[in-house]
């Protein structure tokens, strides 16, 4: 079902609804096709690589890290990342505390840094259980934390989004910002994984 293939295919009910709604809004002069296309393109550019760049910068520039932790929104603006009217809170993993992000209400997510959230982030199972048994949920992602490690769960809202600043792996001394960014995955910044240097 590749939409770009040019193959003919029937609309699904909800696709039909999307086309109908959009055409009506265009006819009424509320949106234009160009605006929609432009936003879809902008969305394509918002990927976890943006967030990874922020993390790598924080790992290599202590002054920036301090500013980012003090005010995530201003930190992003400093790097030229558009954050709209959101409050971004950056939470730092330490040897004692591991952070993980969820949205129990719906699917709030730092999209400007990570793109559209993955399917599982929006799932009933993740949203229900992360606030109650985070250690078990993390182990299902293959992340086993020792019993001494505190886990802090952050429940996002429409106006407040969280980004996890993972711990920089010990064996990465002398790495360039670019190389550091390459090991910072989306899941590390949600808090269901930690970066690995190999």
């Amino acid at each position, binding site marked *: 079902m590749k939409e770009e293939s040019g193959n003919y295919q029937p609309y699904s009910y909800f696709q039909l609804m999307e086309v109908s*709604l959009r055409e009506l809004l265009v006819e009424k002069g509320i949106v234009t096709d160009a605006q929609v296309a432009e936003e879809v393109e902008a969305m394509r550019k918002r990927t976890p690589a943006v967030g990874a760049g922020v993390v790598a910068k924080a790992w290599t520039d202590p002054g920036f890290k301090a500013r980012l932790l003090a005010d995530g929104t201003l930190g992003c603006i400093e790097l030229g990342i558009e954050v709209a009217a959101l409050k971004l809170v950056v939470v730092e993993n330490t040897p004692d505390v591991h952070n993980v992000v969820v949205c129990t209400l719906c699917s709030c997510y730092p999209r400007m840094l990570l793109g559209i959230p993955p399917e599982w982030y929006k799932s009933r199972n993740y949203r229900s259980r992360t606030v109650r048994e985070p250690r078990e949920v993390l182990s299902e992602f293959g992340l086993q934390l020792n019993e001494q490690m505190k886990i802090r769960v952050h429940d996002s809202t429409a106006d407040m989004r969280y980004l996890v600043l993972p711990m920089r792996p010990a064996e990465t001394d002398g790495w360039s910002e670019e190389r550091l960014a390459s090991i910072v995955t989306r899941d590390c910044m949600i808090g269901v994984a930690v970066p690995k240097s190999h």
Partner: protein
Amino acid sequence: MGGLPAGKVEPTEHDYGEWERRVDALMVLLSGGKGGKRLMTVDELRKNIEALPPDAYDRMGYYDRWVTSITQIMIQRGVITTEELGLKMAEIENRGQSPISAKAS
């Protein structure tokens, strides 16, 4: 939902289709972002999603819920009418099997 018992988290991924990205774009524009007219809020989006019957909620995909909610809001706010929507959907269906890449991408 937070705190309720639920099953194992399956780390599922989903590659979003073009129409799903357009639904997202409509949400951004209709919320007043990117030069769009402010005709809805994120709270209305959620309210109308939460109003879905639980079995429908579970059966529908993420952007199925979004497009349903946004459409509802536009009707509630009088931006479009159910009649207009019905006519439009019938008209598009009558276009037949459409080359989505040409018509809707």
